[in-house]
């Protein structure tokens, strides 16, 4: 008995989506959250590629085009989220520094 590969890929995609979702909600660190969102995106893309395979062995190009567009969107949003994370970290550091300096002056 053989398992159809499309089913394996599809279920793996869904598993990655759910695993990423769990990580996004449960991880406290920002970088882990960003990675989790990326894993979710990969899960969706894997699922989309699998859809293109269905229908009697004929390859449907539309989901592939969707995955390509999705990857572009995902790369851009990852870039934005990383840039924003750096900025949040910088601001927090400056804030900490100012607070510590203000505290030091008082002592």
């Amino acid at each position, binding site marked *: 008995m053989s398992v159809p590969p499309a089913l394996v890929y599809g279920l793996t995609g869904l598993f990655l*989506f759910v695993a990423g979702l769990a990580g996004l909600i449960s991880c406290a660190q920002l970088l882990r*959250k960003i990675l989790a*969102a990326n894993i979710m995106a990969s899960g969706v893309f894997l*699922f989309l590629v699998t859809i293109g395979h269905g229908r009697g062995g004929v390859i449907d190009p539309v*989901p592939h085009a*969707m995955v390509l567009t*999705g990857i572009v969107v995902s790369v851009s949003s990852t870039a934005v989220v990383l840039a924003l994370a750096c900025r949040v970290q910088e601001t*927090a550091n400056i804030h900490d520094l100012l607070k510590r300096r203000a505290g030091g002056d008082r002592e």
Partner: protein
Amino acid sequence: MMGLQLQSDCWLIWPVILPLSAALVAFLAKGQPRLSGLTGALLTALASGTLFLKVVNHGGGSYDLGGWQPPLGISLRGDGPAVLMVLMTAVTGLAISVYAGGYFQSRIAMGGKGRRHIVQERFFWPLWLLLWGALNGLFLSADIFNMYVTLELVALSSVGLTALSGKPASQVAAMRYLLASLLGSLSFLLGVAFLYKTHGSLDLATIQAALALSPPVALAMALISVGLMLKCALFPFHFWLAPAHANALAPVSAILSGLVIKGGWYLFFRFWQGFLPLVGDGVVVVLAGLGGAAIIWGAFQAFCQQRLKMLVAYSTVAQIGYLFIIFPLLAIGAGQGAAAVFYFAISHSCAKAALFLAAGSIFLQMGHDRINNLDGVRQILPITTFAFALAGLSLMGLPPTGGFIAKYMYLSLAVSQDSWWLVLVMVVGSCLTAIYICRAVSHVLSPRMVAGRSQVVVGASMEWSALALALVAILLGFIAPLPLGLFEVVG
């Protein structure tokens, strides 16, 4: 369908292409971001107005991009609800643009820390025009994958705008907004994948014509609904909204609360229009229950706030609820229900943007927005205070405002269907709205005088643009039959 399929139908793409090109020009024109930004805003508003007039006079139409027809190609569809949303964005967006011009002029003239405000303005115009183009694309889109792309464009540009103020609080809020939004988009995309798998098409109309309830379709609708609820911050998912909206720059708060929220809701409504006949009453009541919870909880939170902008932001959480309690009422009077909820969305957009613009002017003038210390603002900023009070009237739903017409239609539908709990929620919600708006208005209108900045720093364009939006919200109460007739126009 009655759609005009001529090549001259390209008027549908102008409200999308113009702001996108203007965003590019505003980004490249380093010296004059305000001039290019305002020109772009004016042209976009003109294109949206032209589109609206075309649809009013000649009926809706659709346009296949590149001449490729669905199911393979991507098409834009201009029907009644879509062009109404485009027009709403144009009116609100134009007033916000005028306000933003005056806002940055005042901020830069005030000096302050380095070149911060100049940099903010340099990035504000491209991001705002990009957001405008993405929103118009979202409203006119007929293809569900294209909807995903425009949703992401809207989200990325709004996050950029949220973080623009540079305060630590706004950056953290922007981060939370971005993560919530990413989660929403991915959930939406997985739903789109399931819909494509079952229907083999990405055209929303084609899918809805063949929709039948099956486990994959139900899963797809659940994924899409949860994703869009996250985007428009319906009650359990409202955690990101208030800090993001309240800590942004004044024009940005108005854009986020007045327009961006409507994008997610509009898609939700479009999807559920086709899905409503398939689901049982239970699901619809859950949706309305979430809406009712949002109305009560948001209004209660708004009442508890100490800061004016936080109050207005929580008021948005509450008003989103009204956009969702309509779903049980759509079952019988479908046309009337849709008209009521769109009317509510449009009048809320004008009123809420006016409230945030006025609150931003008050913040700028006083240097803070603690409600209890805002006594006597009316003596310094009479027009702004008047605009705030007028917009508040529309939000409460007092006649003869646009908010009143919408709520009246809601109530008459609810009474005709014996949905007494909806009537109760709406009445209690309106009373709570009146209480928290009056709490703010009683301070700004009080005759006592408090110390603020000695000279007036708020420009005339800021005061009058807020008042213009508030007046539109009032005027909507008088011209109700005109937009309501448009709902019958198909694409």
